[in-house]
């Protein structure tokens, strides 16, 4: 997909740590990536890789004892006069007026759990209307009309009736559609979708993915899609960021990541997924060991204890940085840039 010259969101060397009694968890440990207008960027990784904390850091909703300790998150907003202004979100007060104005207005969010992300005490319409009236100067009646319009847009049948229903009256798929309607109600430039289809069945998942694609085409928003499902990434994304234990190990255009991955972790991850197209009852290549406990983070490259290409004396001592390995593609591995 085509994208503008300037990223709408730039994350630079982001570090979000959780300060707990037992020690410090480096949930995000130096993540760097860009998101462009109209682009879908996939952030993939297994549990504990920091993909959700990255999203929460962007929205400044990291819960205590978590804290952004370093880095920049630059949001570029278009002003009514045609100029763009740059805001470093890490410098803002998370509870301040500006951050609250950005949340929902410039950046929308879809959570994984459609069940828990709506309140059961208010109707769907009530909650969508609240978000609309908070950010746009509309009367109650106008906001309600817009909420109904949004529900229609995301393909909810009979939106005039559904708007007065409660979240528990909707099925999982419809609830996720309502969630999308709420996230898009104020026409944000960026949509962060944190595992938007993980709790859904495959046929419902296909419906929701098609909906997100259509809405993106119509509105030109940028989507940051956080998922562990590589199939979803292949179908939806233009570019991919692969994370492991809080660090970006590889990033690049989706075709290059899937057909020409360079980092040993990306390669191993792609090989180990069971594919619907593979021959049946053939053993899968696996990654040895399991993801380390967050307190027992390996020294050096976080992947070295499980890596097949580990170079003793280098990988377990020094931490590799992201370096170009191909056009638009970067990886953090000493295999490609041994002398740092």
């Amino acid at each position: 997909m085509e994208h503008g010259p300037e990223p709408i969101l730039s994350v630079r060397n982001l570090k979000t740590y959780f300060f707990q009694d037992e020690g410090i968890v480096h949930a995000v440990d130096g993540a760097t990536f860009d998101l462009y207008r109209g682009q879908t960027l996939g952030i993939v990784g297994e549990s504990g890789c920091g993909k959700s904390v990255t999203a929460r850091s962007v929205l400044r909703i990291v819960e205590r004892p978590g804290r952004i300790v370093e880095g920049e998150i630059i949001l570029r907003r278009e002003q009514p006069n045609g100029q763009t202004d740059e805001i470093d979100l890490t410098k803002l007060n998370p509870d301040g007026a500006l951050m609250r104005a950005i949340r929902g207005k410039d950046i929308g969010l879809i959570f994984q759990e459609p069940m828990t992300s709506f309140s059961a005490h208010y109707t769907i319409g009530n909650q969508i209307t609240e978000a609309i009236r908070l950010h746009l100067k509309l009367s109650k009646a106008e906001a309600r009309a817009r909420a109904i319009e949004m529900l229609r847009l995301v393909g909810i049948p009979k939106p005039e009736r559904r708007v007065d229903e409660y979240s528990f009256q909707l099925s999982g798929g419809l609830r996720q559609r309502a969630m999308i309607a709420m996230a898009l109600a104020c026409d944000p430039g960026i949509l962060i979708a944190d595992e938007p289809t993980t709790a859904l069945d495959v046929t419902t998942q296909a419906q929701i993915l098609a909906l997100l694609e259509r809405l993106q085409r119509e509105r030109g928003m940028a989507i940051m899609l956080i998922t562990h499902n590589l199939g979803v990434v292949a179908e939806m994304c233009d570019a991919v960021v692969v994370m492991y234990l809080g660090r970006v190990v590889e990033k690049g255009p989706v075709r290059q990541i899937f057909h020409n991955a360079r980092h040993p972790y990306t390669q191993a991850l792609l090989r180990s997924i069971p594919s619907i197209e593979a021959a049946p009852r053939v053993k899968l290549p696996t990654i040895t060991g399991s993801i380390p406990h967050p307190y027992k983070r390996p020294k050096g490259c976080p992947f070295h204890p499980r890596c097949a290409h580990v170079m003793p004396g280098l990988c377990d001592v020094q931490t590799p940085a992201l370096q170009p390995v191909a056009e638009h593609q970067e990886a953090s591995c000493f295999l490609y840039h041994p002398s740092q």
Partner: protein
Amino acid sequence: MTDQSKEILLDVRNLRKYFPIQKGFLRRVVGHVRAVDDVTLYVRRGETLSLVGESGCGKTTTARCIVRALKPTSGQILLRGPDGVVDLAPLPKRQLRPWRRHMQMIFQDPYSSLNPRMTLFDIVSEPMLVNGIKDRQTRMDRVAELLQLVGLRPEYMRRFPHAFSGGERQRIGIARALALNPSLVIADEPVSALDVSVQAQILNLLLDLQAQLGLTLLFVAHDLSVVKHISERVAVMYVGRIVETAPTPTLFAAPKHPYTEALLAAVPKPDPDLKGQRMLLEGEVADPANPPSGCYFHPRCRYALDLCRTVTPQQEEVAADHFVSCHRARELTLRGVKRT
């Protein structure tokens, strides 16, 4: 792949399980949820049959009826034991006891299925204790042997489950299930709670164990790519009924039921070059408390005829080991998944 000469170990015929819907002060029964509605399947000795379907289709209820954790409403569950075939469905609790050791379960969530206050030795040896193997040394030897079999060190038997990762816990659950040399192992979503890199390890372990011990496996899952890797035959369920059963290669390459086709098409393929080949299944899964008339799938089926709205299709054998419940099974040519 499927060896038709092998004897049939488990033969389930017309299994039904209805749950009553009660209402009001007197708990009047106002209807039934038809969780399992006429399921017929068989499993041969030493093979893996997978039961797939979306959430709420009754696959777990079927599995729980087979191990008689639930009492079926009607139908037969014929299990071949050392001294002949017995119908488990009508047996009362007491008479079931000697049969329980022949059927063991592996559960979905490795975090809640192991008692945190018991050591590995206690957990894995409990089935032996229950079945009259009282001698401690015998049990210790057997536990050591089992732990080795599933890829854990025997020294670990004094430890508690919290010391292990998700994948290792699932191995413990497998060791427990194998403790009594059961003739049938029922695995209910054994890998869906695990990360992809660990998922592959557990799938490989199950394939290995089957080759070593000649295990018979009934594998309940929702992920079609996992199912393809593990099974010799696959049964697809929709709203309490089995719509298609076929040898794995046939089911994936040339499905005969429109629901199977839609399910295969909905799985996101981990290859960006296949983008945009999605086929959408509209609408939602039918309500098992109030299923549609005729074929339960007809409101969502693109090939539906008037006949489908009124007459319930019967299961028929269109080829060896290939059963389909569809009026148009013999005339339709449906799209499967390309082999790569």
